């Protein structure tokens, strides 16, 4: 349910959907159709679903779920979960990734990557189930689960990304007389920014996806709507819940992509 880590070296599939075209009005990439395509399409689909629902006679059960209050609450809960978890993941995984990239030992390196691989194999729902059975329900349990699941892939990507900085560059920097700290700050980190941004985007997408499962630990979120739809066997609820969730996830990913493009230093 989440974006896949780049198994192929990052940078090979660099076709950004936000690159501008060759027409004059596309000189400013903020105006380009390509950039706004995703939100426009999502907005369009949401409109369609809205009109479809508005045109139906909703029974009382459906009305309990398909009203503005309920939906907005669910969206709010979902976004809160996503943002808090993402911030925590970034604060943990990226410094950890940087620190771990300092070790020259190959065994430690492989051990970490190996552990990350095994950790990744644990299903998100399993992690949440274990946490809730042992510790109880609620917002922070959900956060713990989200963070636990997302930290490893972001950590791994950060580690690999920093290690992929051309060793010739770090050697040149050291040769110029920079201390290891300076090399890190002035050469490796700036060059690793694209990787870190990609990690941020990955974290966002993972979290917004797993947050749908927060419903199982009573933490609310959009998963509530979908579960309602399944339990109550009401197609409209299911469809609205799913379309809403999918749309939000795609929008979050889109925002992450925009951040990636705009925050990326020129020349990298």
């Amino acid at each position, binding site marked *: *349910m*989440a*974006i*896949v*880590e780049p*198994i*192929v070296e990052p940078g*090979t*599939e660099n*076709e950004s*959907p936000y690159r501008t075209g060759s027409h004059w009005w596309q000189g400013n990439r903020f105006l380009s159709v390509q950039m706004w395509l995703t939100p426009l399409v999502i907005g369009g689909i949401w409109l369609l679903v809205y009109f479809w629902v508005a045109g139906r006679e909703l029974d009382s059960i459906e009305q309990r779920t398909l009203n503005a209050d309920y939906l907005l609450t669910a969206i709010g809960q979902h976004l809160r979960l996503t943002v808090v978890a993402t911030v925590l993941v970034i604060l943990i995984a990226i410094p950890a990734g940087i620190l771990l990239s300092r070790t020259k030992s190959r065994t430690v390196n492989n051990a970490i990557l190996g552990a990350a*691989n*095994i950790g*990744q*194999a*644990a*299903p*998100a*729902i*399993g*992690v949440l*189930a*274990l946490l*809730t*059975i*042992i510790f109880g*329900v609620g917002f922070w349990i959900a956060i713990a689960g989200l963070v636990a699941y997302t930290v490893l892939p972001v950590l791994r990507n950060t580690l690999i990304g920093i290690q992929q900085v051309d060793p010739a560059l770090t050697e040149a920097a050291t040769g110029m007389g920079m201390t290891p700290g300076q090399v890190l700050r002035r050469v490796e980190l700036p060059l690793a920014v694209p990787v870190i941004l990609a990690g941020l985007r990955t974290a966002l*997408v993972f979290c*917004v*996806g*797993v*947050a*749908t*499962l927060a419903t*199982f630990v009573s933490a609310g979120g*959009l*998963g509530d709507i*979908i579960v309602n*739809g*399944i339990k109550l066997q009401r*197609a409209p609820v*299911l*469809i609205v*819940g*799913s*379309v809403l*969730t*999918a749309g939000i*996830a*795609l929008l979050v*990913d889109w925002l992450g992509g925009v951040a990636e493009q705009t925050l990326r230093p020129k020349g990298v």
Partner: protein
Amino acid sequence: MGSFLEYLQKQYDDLLQLAWEHALVTIISVGIGAVIALTVGILVWNKPVSRAGAVAITGAILTIPSFALLGLLIPAFGLGWTPTVIALVLYSLLPITRNTVVGMREVDPAILEAGTGLGMSPWTVTMRVQLPLAWPVILTGIRVSAQLIIGIAAIAAYVLGPGLGEVIFSGLSRLGSANALNQAIAGTVGVIILALIFDAAFVLVRRLTTSRGLRA
């Protein structure tokens, strides 16, 4: 710990059956997905617009939370195997498509030209030269797909999909009972073990199917 071992002993057969189903649905879905993704990859690898489109679409699918995609499929296909397999096939597409495209592009054009120059038809060049050379990368994509699918299949159990997810959800619904933890552990660890087995299998397949001339 003691209760866990007891639980394992009692439920061993059931767990094995579920694990088998889990593996089966994975193999079927990744299989179908691989056929589709490989075909698409072979068709678009050298056409920039189509290529970007294929990667974008399959990528967008992957961004949709699995619960949401399943929710969309249920009104049309009900519960159980059908929406599960459809969703899993859709999710398996991106890693394989992307790696097929990248793998094909990475083959040295001089080698392809040599093949054409010798008198191979375009089909022969693609099938006998380019694909075998791109195969290691493609296989990695299939491997990533499988890992992904194993995880998503666990969630699909909520909509009566096959596999070990059922055990996890069972534990969840029995919060507070003695067996809940056992079930959660059994389900989660079971999925992890399955993932590791698949990974090992892929290492084997890679050895067996990659030409000796390619192993660096």
